Structure formats: structure tokens, C-alpha cells
């Protein structure tokens, strides 16, 4: 009670200082007057009486200080005073303050943004209850996440480790809620999907495994909250409404809660549909094809008490059983567990590696910024040595002075951090509504959460301590007597100082950043100019999914032929080809192929894994894929004629040894014996960074596919033909949903990873360059200003410009060279990580090496230009008179 009352009074007193000081002053005066009177009565002279009274009272100022300390809250008052003083000091040097705040804002902002993305994609688990026990399945040494539906059923029913196993697929369907057919991205899921994940409906109900009774038995839809909001305007009466999916009636059952947006972090589907209705959705049904691994991912919660290792052993024993029972279809059935969300290591691996690398680089940026600010603060402390000396001489303890300096550092850091955080929140907000790819519902759910704010705050505080600590030793060793006597002391020693070391570290870090960004940019430029095995320029793509418009069986190829013929009649169109799935478009289909001599066609005996494409005869011409030998297809390569294939050069040399042997040769794939009739050039199929892959092309009439893209080759700008193409297609079937893009546009998705990598590295590289400029500039300018007198004397004694420059800036350049060399070396090491993301990113590229050296020298030149000018313009007469 007592101490509480006292605390409150002291708080109040802290706020109302003035009045009480008056009271004390009066009391002290009265006290001394009374004592003086007493002393007079004792017979002392008036002067002596007052002197004795003063002596007896003791130090008036000390008493006042003690009194004040007793009255208010010393700590709070000192702190407030420090803050006020810091603000005053910072205002006095706006240039310094601006540089420091901007540097920190940029560095902390960069960290917050990278952390926000890292958090969104990797750290944050999927938004399901008990996410920690949710695992996805990976198969074989290649960690494939895709499984076949029959295998999934066996895994689900035979395992004893998972509470339940669900599976899903991503696909596109045409939805018609009235008279507005358009296509949407959906997740096809198993009936137990919502129950296995433990999600409860926001509205209506979900479908369950009890709703599944064989193919096409569960025509139900569950909407995402976002889609319900945007498409149905939160209309609660949608539950029970019947809509058309690919011309089939489906019932809307319910709406998922807003926080649940599917099981793929970077894809927001519009709704969920049972996988058993696959035939209606995709036109094909692979529910019984054990060899067709068309399920994107299987996932489930582990039972309580089951460790991941036990689950893997359990799954492997099922895998062993499957290999034994279905040798033709199942091979390499070993399993491992992975976090779901990012489709395992296939996508998660590179993303994780890249983001971790980026986080590291961002951390380096902050470190470089701290080194930069540390030397700025040290220089400032040196400039203020006279002020510090006076304060020390007046009795301020070193702790008091350090606290003052730290308050200043903290203030700068918090302002910078707040600015950086604001910028990063804006950026992250933008990022999370950004749809980077025109043709897929990809987005980065990077809305900043509390973690981002906390990280930014912690980083601000940590950096304040880092750069605030640099001048500590300097302050503790200040000798007020010497400083006040001789002015600020400059030790122009040859010894390596902490500041020099900081600068070297900082330049090295910046050189690492510059090197990696150059490596990435070079890689991107190269990948843009490499051969794809087709020519995307001057080609339009018409993407159709005939199954969405209700085409079945033989109607599919007939309609496709009609479209090709109709489009070819448009003037300025040279040729039109059709392919089931474009190369470099969200993964690729591959199949095991066997040499003709292999009798036992189990996956383990395969000769190679080859990409499969189904194309129309004109495809090679339309795509500009050059034929190296043999022939392409004709419309007579149909079901009634023997199966033929066109293969690429890699395929020919891998299976047949050479192109000459391949033509006319036979091999086995897809359950049949196939003759090679032609060889085409190699291309890029799954990703730009891949090594040459074997690929085979089948005629569309022998292997029909309702999912197909038409490649329209034109003379000149294909964009102008878009309208004609559109009306032609609509003239054939008005109800057919289709999309028209240029091929170059479509390729954005393939280039997206390396674009993003290059962009982010480029930004970090630019930041690094900026920091090294300010760092070198600060150091050079400071050393010139400290040595102006010396330079003046040298000049008076007849030194030449060259010698002056060497004296003034030699050290800065030496540090720059040393730091750059170290950074270049480290950058080359770091670039190995890059090679996995950016196509052909190699640091052993003379252009990169030369570029880094040139960039660093330019930076050095730029940063030392002004200090050099200042050193050269020294007028010894004026300078020496002044001092």
C-alpha cells in the first residue's frame, strides 16, 4: 500500500516538476538563514556565519539532485530526458538521421518481406485442426507425390498408422450457374477429404465417404468461402441449388469455413468436387487404372502415438505387397512422409532452399546496414568527443553517457524499423492479392501476421544494440582532460581499427549480393534465349477442354479435326496443330518405355522414362519443332493402322543408340509395340532447368485426348487474329469454353520461378550496392575531414594531387579491394544454391566475374568522388590559419 501510494505520487511529480523545485529552493534558503542567524548569535562575523551555515548544509546541488531522485521516478525522467535530447541531436543533423533511418528501413523492410513470404509458404502449417500430425505421402527414391487411385485405396484400407487417408487432384472445369459458362480451378477430392482433415462446414453440409457409390455417383459441390462470396454474393440459399459442371448437373451441398482454402498453400481453388466423378469432370476415368498415377497427393493425420517412422514402415510393407501383387503396374513402392501444403519435396524443396537462401541474404543486408551505421555512429561519437568530455568532466558517469548514446541508436532504429515494417506490410498485402500467372490460380498467401511484426521489432532492437555498441569502447576510453586540452584527438594510425573491419565485412557482404544477382540475371537471360524445342513467338494458343462441353468418345477427335480445318481457312494463318498438353506447362506426363527385346514389362525393367505428348499431324509444323529424320504423322495414322511414334533425339540415342537405328525401329510403351517413324529436335518439357529428356509423340487419332491446346502459327502479329479465331471457334460450338493466349504469355508460368529469383536477387543486389556506396562514402568523407589539416600541410610542402589522393583515399580503396575479393569468392560459393532454381546459373562465367569487379570499382569511384574533390580543394593557407 505504502509503496504504491508513493509510486503514484512520484509519477504525478514526474509530470509536474517546476512547482516543487521552487518549494525546495525556498526551504533551503530558510534553513540556511536560520543557521546563519544561529551562527551570528554565537558571535561569528556575518560572512563567516553564512559560510559555516553553507558548509553545514553540505552540497546544495547534491541535496537537490537527491531530492529530485526521491520525488520523481529517476529512471523514467532520465529516459524521457534522453529521448528529448536524442531527438534534439538527431534534428540537428538531418542528413545523418535520414541516411540512418532510410538504411534501416530498407534493411528491416527487406527482412520483414522475405520473412513474411517464408512464414506464409513454409512456417505456417495448413489451416486445419492438429496440423502437426498431418502428413503427405511421397513415393520412391524420387519422392514422387502422385499415386494411382487403386493404390490409394489399398494404402487407405490396409494401413494401421493413419486415422484416415484422403487424396486430391487439381483440375479445371466449366461451371454454368445459368447462362454463363466459364472455367474454374477445383480440387477433386476423395469423399472422406473433409472428415479426414477435420473441417466442419460453414454452411450446409459436406460430402462424406458414404456418398460415394462408384463412378459418377456423387454429383456434389462444396464451395470455398471466397468463391461463395464473389460468385454467389454470400447467398445462403445456394445450398441445394443445382448447377452445371461440364454440362452435368451437380448439387451445391455447402460452404467451407473462410480460413480453409484447400490443401495446397499457393493454390486457391474455387470449389471441391468428389473424385469419383472424375469422368464427368475430366472426360476420362482413371479410377481403375493402377498404372496411371493421376492422384496429385495423398495425405492424412497420424493416429495418436504413432511416430512417422512407424507409419513409414507400415506403408512400406503395403508397398511391398503391392509390388508383389501388381508387378506390371507397381514398382519402387517405398514411402516417406512430407509436410503437405507444398506437394512435398517436388516443389517444397526448391522453394524452401530458395527462401532460406533469400532470408540469409536479407539477414546479411541487415548486418551490412548495421556495420554501416556502426561506423557512422562511431564517427559521430568521435566528432562529439568534446561534448562527451565536458559531460564526463561535470560528473556524468560513463553508464549515463552510454545510455544516452544507446537511446539515440534505439530511436533511429525504431523509426527505421517502423518505416520498414510499414513498407513491408504494404508489399506483402500487394503480394497476397497478386496473381502472378495468367492461367493458374496461383497466389502467395502472404498477409502479414503478428509474427512479422514481432520479427521487425526484434530486428530493430537487435540492430540498435549492434550498431549502438560500436562506439562503446571509444566512449569508455575518453579522457576528458586530454580532449578538452587539445581538441578532438585523431589517431591516424596504421593499425586496423574496428571501423575498418566493419567496412570490409560490409563490402564483402555487398559483393556477395552483387555477385549472386548477376549470376541470376545472366542465367535468366540465357534461359530466355535457349532453345525450347518449339518457337513461342508468333503463335497463339487456343485451349479447349471438349469434355467440359460434353464431347465423348469419337466425337472428340472429330470436333478437333473440324476446329483445325476451320482455323486453317483464316487468312494469315499458316498452320494449326494440336497437342494434348503443352510442354513447359505445369508438369508433364511421362511413361516408362521398354526396348523391343524386353519381355517382362514391369516398371523395374524399363529402359527410360519418356515424356508423352499426343499431337495432330500439323503440330510439328505449327510449333516449329524441326524434324531431323523420317516423317511426321498424317491423318491416316489412326486406330486402324499400326501404332507409330515420333521421338526426340535424346529418346533415339537412349533407346536405340543412334538416330539411324531408331527410324523404323520398335519399342514398347503404353502396353503396345510402337514403331518410330520420325525424329525431332530435343526441347524443354517439364522445366527450363532440366537436362535433355527423352520424349515421344503419339498421333492424336491413335491416343485421343479431350484436353487439348491448338497451336495457331501465323504470319506476323498473332494478336490481331484473336478475334477471327474466337468467332471461328464459337461458330463451331457456342457452348464450348475456351481460352486464347499468345504462347509467349503462356510461357510466363515456366519462367516464373527464375523471374522471381532474379527479381528478388536483383533487388537485394541493388540494396547491397546502395549500402556499400553509403558505407564507403561515410568512411572516406570522415577520414578526409579528420585529416584536412594534415592534407593541408602536405600540400603546403608541395605534395602533388596524386599523392594527396593516395593519402586521403588509399586506405578506403585498399579496404574496398579486400572486401570485394572476399565477397566475390563467397558469392561464387553461394551461387551453387542458385543453380537449382535459375536455369544455367553458373558463377564460373567470365562476364559475371568481370561484371562484379567492374560494379564494385564503379561503386568505389562513385562513393569516393565527393570526398576526393574535397581533399583536392584543400587550400592550405586558409586551413592552417583557421586551426
Amino acid at each position, binding site marked *: 500500500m*505504502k509503496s504504491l*501510494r*508513493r509510486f503514484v*505520487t*512520484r509519477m504525478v511529480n514526474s509530470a509536474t516538476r517546476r512547482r516543487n523545485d521552487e*518549494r*525546495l529552493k*525556498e*526551504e*533551503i534558503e*530558510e*534553513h540556511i*538563514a*536560520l*543557521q546563519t*542567524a*544561529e551562527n551570528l548569535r554565537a558571535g561569528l562575523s556575518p560572512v563567516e556565519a553564512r559560510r559555516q551555515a553553507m558548509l*553545514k*548544509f*553540505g*552540497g*546544495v546541488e*547534491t*541535496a537537490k539532485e*537527491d*531530492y529530485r*531522485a*526521491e*520525488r520523481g521516478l529517476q529512471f523514467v525522467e532520465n529516459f524521457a530526458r534522453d529521448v528529448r535530447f536524442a531527438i534534439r541531436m538527431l534534428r540537428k543533423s538531418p542528413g545523418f538521421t535520414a541516411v540512418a533511418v532510410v538504411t534501416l528501413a530498407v534493411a528491416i523492410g527487406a527482412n520483414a518481406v522475405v520473412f513474411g513470404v517464408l512464414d506464409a509458404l513454409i512456417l505456417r502449417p495448413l489451416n486445419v485442426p492438429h496440423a502437426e500430425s498431418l502428413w503427405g505421402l511421397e513415393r520412391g527414391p524420387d519422392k514422387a507425390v502422385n499415386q494411382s487411385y487403386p493404390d490409394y485405396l489399398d494404402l487407405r484400407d490396409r494401413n494401421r498408422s493413419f486415422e484416415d487417408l484422403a487424396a486430391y487432384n487439381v483440375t479445371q472445369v466449366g461451371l454454368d450457374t445459368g447462362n454463363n459458362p466459364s472455367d474454374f480451378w477445383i480440387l477433386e477430392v476423395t469423399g472422406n477429404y473433409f472428415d479426414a482433415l477435420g473441417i466442419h462446414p460453414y454452411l450446409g453440409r459436406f460430402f462424406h465417404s458414404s456418398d460415394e457409390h462408384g463412378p459418377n455417383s456423387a454429383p456434389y459441390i462444396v464451395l470455398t468461402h471466397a468463391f461463395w462470396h464473389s460468385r454467389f454474393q454470400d447467398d445462403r440459399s445456394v445450398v441445394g441449388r443445382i448447377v452445371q459442371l461440364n454440362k452435368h448437373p451437380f448439387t451445391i451441398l455447402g460452404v467451407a469455413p473462410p480460413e480453409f482454402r484447400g490443401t495446397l498453400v499457393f493454390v486457391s481453388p474455387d470449389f471441391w468436387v468428389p473424385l469419383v466423378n472424375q469422368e464427368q469432370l475430366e472426360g476420362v476415368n482413371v479410377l481403375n487404372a493402377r498404372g496411371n498415377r493421376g492422384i496429385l497427393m495423398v495425405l492424412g493425420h497420424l493416429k495418436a502415438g504413432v511416430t512417422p517412422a512407424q507409419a513409414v514402415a507400415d506403408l512400406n510393407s503395403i508397398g511391398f505387397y503391392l509390388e508383389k501383387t501388381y508387378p506390371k503396374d507397381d514398382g519402387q513402392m517405398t514411402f516417406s512422409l512430407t509436410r503437405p501444403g507444398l506437394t512435398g519435396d517436388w516443389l517444397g524443396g526448391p522453394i524452401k532452399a530458395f527462401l532460406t537462401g533469400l532470408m540469409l541474404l536479407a539477414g546479411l543486408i541487415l548486418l551490412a546496414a548495421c556495420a554501416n551505421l556502426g561506423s557512422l555512429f562511431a564517427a559521430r561519437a568521435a566528432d562529439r568527443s568534446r561534448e562527451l568530455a565536458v559531460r564526463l568532466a561535470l560528473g556524468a558517469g560513463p553508464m549515463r553517457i552510454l545510455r544516452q548514446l544507446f537511446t539515440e541508436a534505439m530511436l533511429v532504429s525504431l523509426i527505421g524499423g517502423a518505416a520498414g515494417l510499414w513498407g513491408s506490410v504494404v508489399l506483402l498485402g500487394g503480394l497476397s492479392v497478386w496473381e502472378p500467372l495468367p492461367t493458374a490460380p496461383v497466389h502467395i498467401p502472404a498477409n502479414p501476421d503478428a509474427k512479422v511484426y514481432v520479427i521487425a521489432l526484434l530486428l530493430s532492437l537487435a540492430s540498435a544494440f549492434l550498431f549502438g555498441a560500436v562506439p562503446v569502447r571509444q566512449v569508455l576510453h575518453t579522457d576528458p582532460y586530454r580532449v578538452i586540452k587539445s581538441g578532438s584527438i585523431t589517431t591516424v594510425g596504421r593499425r586496423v581499427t574496428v571501423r575498418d573491419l566493419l567496412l570490409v565485412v560490409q563490402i564483402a557482404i555487398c559483393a556477395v549480393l552483387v555477385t549472386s544477382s548477376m549470376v541470376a540475371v545472366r542465367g535468366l537471360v540465357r534461359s530466355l534465349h535457349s532453345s525450347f524445342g518449339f518457337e513461342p513467338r508468333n503463335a497463339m494458343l487456343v485451349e479447349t477442354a471438349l469434355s467440359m462441353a460434353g464431347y465423348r468418345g469419337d466425337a472428340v477427335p472429330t470436333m478437333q479435326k473440324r476446329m483445325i480445318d476451320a482455323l486453317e481457312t483464316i487468312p494469315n494463318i499458316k498452320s494449326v496443330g494440336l497437342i494434348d498438353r503443352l510442354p513447359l506447362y505445369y508438369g508433364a506426363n511421362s511413361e516408362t518405355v521398354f526396348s523391343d527385346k524386353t519381355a517382362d514389362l514391369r516398371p523395374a525393367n524399363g529402359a527410360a522414362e519418356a515424356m508423352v505428348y499426343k499431337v495432330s499431324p500439323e503440330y510439328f509444323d505449327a510449333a516449329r519443332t524441326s524434324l531431323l529424320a523420317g516423317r511426321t504423322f498424317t491423318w491416316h495414322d489412326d486406330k486402324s493402322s499400326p501404332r507409330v511414334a515420333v521421338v526426340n533425339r535424346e529418346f533415339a540415342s537412349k533407346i536405340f543408340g543412334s538416330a539411324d537405328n531408331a527410324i523404323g525401329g520398335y519399342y514398347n510403351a503404353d502396353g503396345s509395340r510402337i514403331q518410330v517413324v520420325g525424329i525431332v529436335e530435343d526441347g524443354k518439357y517439364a522445366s527450363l532447368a532440366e537436362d535433355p529428356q527423352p520424349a515421344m509423340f503419339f498421333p492424336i487419332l491413335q491416343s485421343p485426348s479431350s484436353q487439348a491446346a491448338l497451336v495457331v502459327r501465323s504470319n506476323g502479329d498473332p494478336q490481331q487474329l484473336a478475334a477471327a479465331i474466337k468467332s471461328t471457334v464459337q461458330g463451331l460450338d457456342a457452348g464450348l469454353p475456351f481460352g486464347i493466349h499468345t504462347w509467349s504469355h503462356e510461357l510466363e508460368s515456366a519462367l516464373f520461378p527464375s523471374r522471381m529469383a532474379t527479381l528478388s536477387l536483383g533487388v537485394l543486389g541493388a540494396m547491397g550496392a546502395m549500402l556499400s556506396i553509403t558505407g564507403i562514402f561515410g568512411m572516406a568523407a570522415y577520414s578526409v575531414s579528420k585529416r584536412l589539416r594534415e592534407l593541408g600541410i602536405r600540400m603546403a610542402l608541395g605534395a602533388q594531387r596524386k599523392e594527396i589522393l593516395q593519402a586521403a583515399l588509399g586506405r578506403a580503396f585498399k579496404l574496398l579491394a579486400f572486401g570485394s575479393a572476399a565477397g566475390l569468392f563467397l558469392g561464387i560459393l553461394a551461387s551453387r544454391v542458385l543453380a537449382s532454381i535459375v536455369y544455367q546459373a553458373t558463377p564460373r562465367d567470365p562476364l559475371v566475374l568481370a561484371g562484379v569487379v567492374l560494379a564494385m570499382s564503379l561503386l568505389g569511384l562513385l562513393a569516393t568522388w565527393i570526398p576526393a574533390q574535397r581533399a583536392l580543394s584543400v587550400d592550405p593557407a586558409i586551413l592552417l590559419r583557421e586551426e
Partner: protein
Amino acid sequence: MKQKTDVLQGTLALMVLKTLDVLGSLHGYGIARRIEQISGDLLAVNQGTLYPVLLKLEQEGAIASEWGASENNRRARFYRLTREGRKQLQLETQDWEQTAAIIGRFFEAKAEDLS
């Protein structure tokens, strides 16, 4: 060099309370004089240190103060004990006597008493 007894703040506070208890309302100088008289030369106190102690006691509510006229007819701040202060004085006197008694017994004790 051995210094004269250093007066701890807590002891000084107790002396102030006792002084006010005995003499009633008093100004700062009066309190200082009284403490000086009683302790004689044994206790050399910088009179200035008295004021922070007075302030602390006032903030704790043990004493109250108001302006009044001093002997030479000038404005002076007069301090007096509150009820709470009287209670505090009682408690602390007891504490102090107890402590003094214990310490006294320790000093009187001889080796044979403990065996």
C-alpha cells in the same frame, strides 16, 4: 581514515519521526538542530540530506507539511506527524528495540555461555 558514523537513511527517518513525535510541528532546520543536539558530535550529518528523507516520509503519508511563519517571521515549511506516522513510529521503535536487544545479547555473550 576512519569516518564518523555514516547515518543511514532509514535511521535518519526514524529520528525524524521521533523528533516530530516529541516536539510536535517543526520546520526542517528545527528537526536538524534537534537531531544534532541529541546525538552530539557523534553524528555529523550534512543537513542537506534531511530534505530527501522528509520528502520520502511525506510521500509515504507518515508526515504532513504546511507553510507557517518561522522564528524570524519568514515563511517556512512545518512538518508534523500524521496518525499513520505515529503507527509507523511505534512499529519501528519496537523493531529497533528488538534488534538492539538481540545484538546487545550477542555482545554480552561469552564463550562459556555457549558451551
